[in-house]
């Protein structure tokens, strides 16, 4: 996983929960079929319009609810570059790091508009808005997770730890 991510913004509000990202009724389907329904409860055209590298920017409590990693699976299927939110639900934040989906907290995401081109530096906790020419502070990646993120997530990290190539 790269520490610098640049992409176009899709903007959402508060409490984008995992039932919205990955509705329960489709969870037993293969990921490519689940992904069609990602976010459809609040944004029916999401899976058609989103492009690889796009960045989701949202308000408070992104990813609340279930521990389902199908939420990360469908967002990764759509090749979402990163998620920036005022705050994340705990399990979602942890799962994202474990599977190598970049997540950054930022005090006030309302200064970012849909369609903006933003660049995120995970190590420095910096968010540059190229469209508006502004720079914002985000949270830095916790130190004990830097190596895991550098390696691409928990599985490669465990492989190294367990001495499996």
């Amino acid at each position: 996983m790269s520490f610098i991510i640049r992409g176009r913004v899709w903007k959402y509000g508060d409490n984008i929960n995992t039932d919205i990202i990955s509705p329960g009724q489709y969870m037993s389907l293969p990921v490519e079929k689940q992904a069609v329904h990602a976010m459809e409860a609040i944004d029916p055209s999401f899976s058609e319009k989103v492009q690889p590298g796009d960045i989701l920017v949202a308000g408070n409590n992104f990813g609340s609810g279930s521990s389902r990693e199908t939420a990360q699976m469908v967002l990764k299927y759509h090749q979402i570059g990163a998620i920036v939110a005022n705050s994340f639900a705990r399990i979602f934040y942890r799962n994202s790091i474990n599977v190598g989906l970049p997540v950054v907290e930022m005090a006030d995401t309302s200064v970012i508009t849909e369609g903006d081109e933003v660049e995120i530096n995970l190590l420095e906790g910096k968010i540059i808005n190229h469209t508006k020419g502004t720079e914002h502070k985000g949270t830095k990646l916790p130190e004990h997770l830097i190596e895991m993120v550098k390696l691409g997530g928990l599985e490669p990290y465990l492989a190294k730890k367990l001495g499996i190539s």
Partner: protein
Amino acid sequence: MGMTMSEKILAKASGQANVKAGDIVWVKVDIAMMHDLLGPWLVDGGFRRLGGKLFDKEKVVVVSDHCTPPATVQQADILKFTRDWSRNQELPYYYEFEGPCHQVIVEHGHVRPGRLILGTDSHTCMAGGLGAFATGIGSTEMIGVLLTGETWLKVPETIKVVWDGQLPHGVYAKDIVLKTIKDIGHAGATYQTIEFSGSAISDLSMDERLVLSNMAVEAGAKTGLIEPDQKVVDYLRSKGVTEEIDMISSDEDAIYSRVLYYNASELEPQVACPHEVDNVHAVSSVEGKAVDQVYLGSCTNGRISDLRIAAQILKGKKISKNIRCLVVPASQHVWMQANKEGILDILTEAGCIVNMPSCGACGGFTSGVIGAGEVVMSSSNRNFRGRMGSPKGEVYLGSPAAVAATAIEGKITDPRKYLPKEVMVNVIHH
């Protein structure tokens, strides 16, 4: 400096004398729990790539509950995969068709005070009702736990929620937890433990305590804890647990991030309205809202005491012709007990349909999902948009009593209207 229950359990699990909120610790897991939908079929690839050897099969529990009974071929395939995987791994503890995992692991004695339990489901925190530190993790994280028996955790701060006094007639644990979530907010306890205490909490039965811990995650909490007492010991003994019980408690001088005080005697029946669990109002303010379906069950509120209350309300009555009422006992054990007590007869004679114990329609998986424009009154734990089926449906959450009263009228109803006098006396003098 004193320690909270969370700090004590995580100190023990990390082999240290003292830890404090904010510390990052590597912990040894006592129970790793997976269910069918977020379990073996998702972890198997990574697990095998990394050697495929379980750290300790005695500490791994698998419960098939989300795809039971399978409604689609895909669910049947997941169920088969889960069953075959558990057999191939020679797991001593694999359960299926018994009910939601959180209830099943409690009934089989896997949940004990002081244990560290990680499960691939956000409501794993229910085990905190017996004094275990239990929380949900993702499937990838579970791969690491299965291989090494360890993971890292940040020691959480604790919000102490004190409920003193006696609950009034017609008011239950569900109302306590809904009111608490309303005040803390759906993200207000993120990264923290909620510890429930006070005389109203001690007075609650085991069944009811589990409602509180089950729903702690609806305030964003990592877990919901209740100090174990003699009721917990008696419960575990009745389940055949003979080993010494760790009567863990928070120290008097433990540090809390926040303490909330409530007088239980002032509480009224509560309802969580669409589409967030903290959108809570007194039942009086939503009374009369017409519903299409009533759902009495789930790991939150499908235990025997819940079904008894519903039966008291529905005995000799008929549910509204405009609705269907689905009853989903929290486990096969609960089903059998309800059958023995004649409760299933009372409920079916009233017009309810009794489904098999499973996660069912609570998460929109099987048996009773709703269509566009439909409204449900449910005793379960989550009312997110699309949670029980169509994203154009609406889910209201309330106590089993409120759910049963709603079934009679076909619209959201204050349960106190239908509680017989003798129940009132029982509640007051219990």
